[in-house]
């Protein structure tokens, strides 16, 4: 009896996650046996080696696709894509952090442990084929993020950000669970495939409570991807968090949340697209515009990047709204590109920032004349800013290009117009950094030393190269993205 059960579970398909849990346990043990206060170095090495192991396991299993655990999780090209992307991002963040966490006075092994556990949560999210597994994944990830945001305990902004994020996160978790309950109540299942089948058969007479469930789940996703009007937590959390964590949060969890968003809404609620359209339309417009307008007024580069990440989420919703393979692959493409340029930009911000303990750090003023002081660093920042603006030939241009052309192709011309207009507005605040770097005179008395770490420099270099390479030859990445989503629809 149980032999059958084991065979039907396909435990081997979640080998990467199993490896990851093993790595977490190993990392905890490493922390425990290392001398007090000196454990971060060994833990970091164990984590990095373990993540390579996770990658190897992922690649080993790249042909073993299908459901596992009785349909609770789905291992397909989509899962594979995000496993690789998320593991890479986590690897990079862990790789660059060691020197920074010393600077930010958070040199504790939990920093790495939480990142690994968050990765585990995200892995669950991207493969969840069942709302309950998805819930587990989201909660695992979120609890780790709450802690990571509040890690700089001596900084008021960090505490404040973490508390806000936690309270509001807990608040929305309620909506999510209630949404699952309503969906279960109306469809009789929490499995996405069953839900799809149900909606397909009763499409004409959808019960109101099913709509309420769909709406509540939409709201939970909107919160996790910080869409207006559920974005309130993100600027404070992003600003308060240690900057490496900000870079992490604006890339990996966002990617994971969008991945789950796509799977739930394309697979589970795929037949409700016409009903969801107006709501998502407005969310997209508001998210793009509000994030932009507020980013215009920021005096801190970190906070500007936080608000602009809201805007970028808005662009992604535009693509989501197309309900087509082209839109979904544009999202995947954009998420990768955004991760590259955003991590790069945050690394430069860390390098330039004057004083990590300063609550009002990351000022534009720090960039004054950087182009002449540190030409290579400034050049890297310029590339990232141009890419975030979406100016060719950088990767960011193609990210936007694919999204808006997918939108136009699906008939959302108005949305594309608003999106392009918004990206025109965003020129202003991204350009401000470039202006500061190249067109303002140096003020040598006020200059703070640049914070250098070899790991940061190498990652920055790779990011610059990737931004340019993808900007010149984007199609390989897009074809990977297309292949990844092809199994979904």
């Amino acid at each position: 009896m149980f032999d059958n059960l084991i065979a039907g579970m396909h435990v081997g398909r979640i080998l990467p996650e199993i490896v990851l849990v093993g790595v977490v346990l190993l990392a905890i043990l490493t922390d425990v046996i290392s001398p007090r206060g000196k454990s971060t170095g060994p833990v970091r090495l164990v984590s990095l080696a373990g993540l390579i192991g996770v990658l190897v396991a992922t690649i080993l299993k790249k042909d073993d696709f299908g459901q596992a655990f009785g349909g609770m999780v789905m291992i397909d090209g989509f899962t594979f894509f995000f496993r690789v992307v998320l593991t890479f991002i986590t690897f990079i963040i862990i790789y660059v952090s060691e020197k920074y966490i010393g600077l930010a006075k958070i040199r504790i092994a939990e920093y790495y442990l939480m990142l690994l556990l968050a990765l585990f949560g995200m892995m669950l999210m991207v493969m969840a084929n069942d709302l309950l597994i998805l819930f587990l994944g989201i909660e695992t990830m979120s609890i780790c993020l709450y802690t990571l945001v509040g890690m700089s305990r001596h900084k008021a902004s960090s505490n404040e950000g973490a508390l806000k994020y936690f309270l509001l996160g807990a608040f929305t978790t309620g909506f999510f669970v209630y949404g699952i309950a309503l969906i279960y109540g109306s469809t009789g299942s929490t499995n996405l495939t069953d839900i799809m089948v149900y909606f397909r058969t009763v499409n004409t007479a959808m019960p109101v409570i099913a709509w309420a469930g769909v709406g509540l789940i939409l709201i939970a996703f909107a919160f996790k991807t910080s869409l207006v009007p559920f974005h309130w937590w993100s600027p404070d959390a992003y600003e308060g968090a240690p900057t490496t964590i900000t870079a992490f949060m604006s890339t990996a969890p966002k990617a994971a949340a969008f991945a789950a968003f796509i799977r739930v809404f394309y697979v589970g609620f795929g037949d409700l697209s016409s009903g969801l359209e107006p709501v998502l339309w407005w969310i997209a417009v508001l998210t793009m515009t509000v994030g932009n307008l507020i980013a215009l007024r920021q005096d801190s580069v970190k906070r500007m990047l936080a608000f602009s990440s809201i805007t970028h989420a808005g662009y992604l919703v535009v693509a989501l709204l197309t309900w087509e393979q082209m839109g979904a692959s544009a999202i995947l493409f954009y998420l990768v590109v955004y991760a590259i340029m955003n991590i790069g930009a945050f690394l430069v911000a860390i390098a330039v920032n004057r004083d990590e303990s300063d609550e009002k750090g990351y000022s534009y003023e720090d960039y004054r004349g950087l182009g002449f002081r540190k030409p290579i660093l400034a050049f890297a920042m310029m590339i990232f800013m141009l890419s975030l603006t979406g100016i060719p030939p950088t990767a960011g241009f193609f990210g936007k290009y694919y999204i808006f052309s997918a939108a136009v192709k699906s008939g959302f011309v108005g949305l594309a117009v608003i999106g392009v207009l918004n990206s025109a507005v965003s020129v202003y605040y991204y350009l401000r950094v470039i202006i500061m770097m190249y067109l303002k005179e140096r003020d040598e008395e006020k200059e703070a030393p640049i914070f250098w770490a070899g790991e940061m420099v190498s990652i920055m270099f790779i990011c610059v190269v990737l931004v340019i390479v993808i900007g010149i030859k984007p199609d390989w990445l897009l074809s990977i993205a297309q292949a990844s989503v092809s199994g979904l629809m």
Partner: protein
Amino acid sequence: MTPNDFLPVLITFFVVGGFAGITLIATHILGPKRYSKEKHDIYECGLDYIGDSRKPFSVKFYLVAVLFVIFDLEVVFMYPWAVNFRHLGLFGFVSMGIFLVILTVGLLYEWKKGALEWE
């Protein structure tokens, strides 16, 4: 299920809400009010209060409480497992083994981090 099935729930909702609301409003309107310093005290019994009632507790209380919950749940898992031990066979044994390894690593971590020391 149709929305009509929820009609009784809705009625109950309004009845409950209405009753609470009306009671509150009624006492607010009907009750006489005489304010004085004593009335705003925490104890109206004539004793002067000392300090604030919202004193922070030591975080250790919470820590122990959380630890208790975790190991309590562990036992909840283990009872049914122990009852069906033979029936579950190797599969059950390995599963519970993994579960216990994870918990043990957690326990080690707590121990080492000093969560179990009161002082």
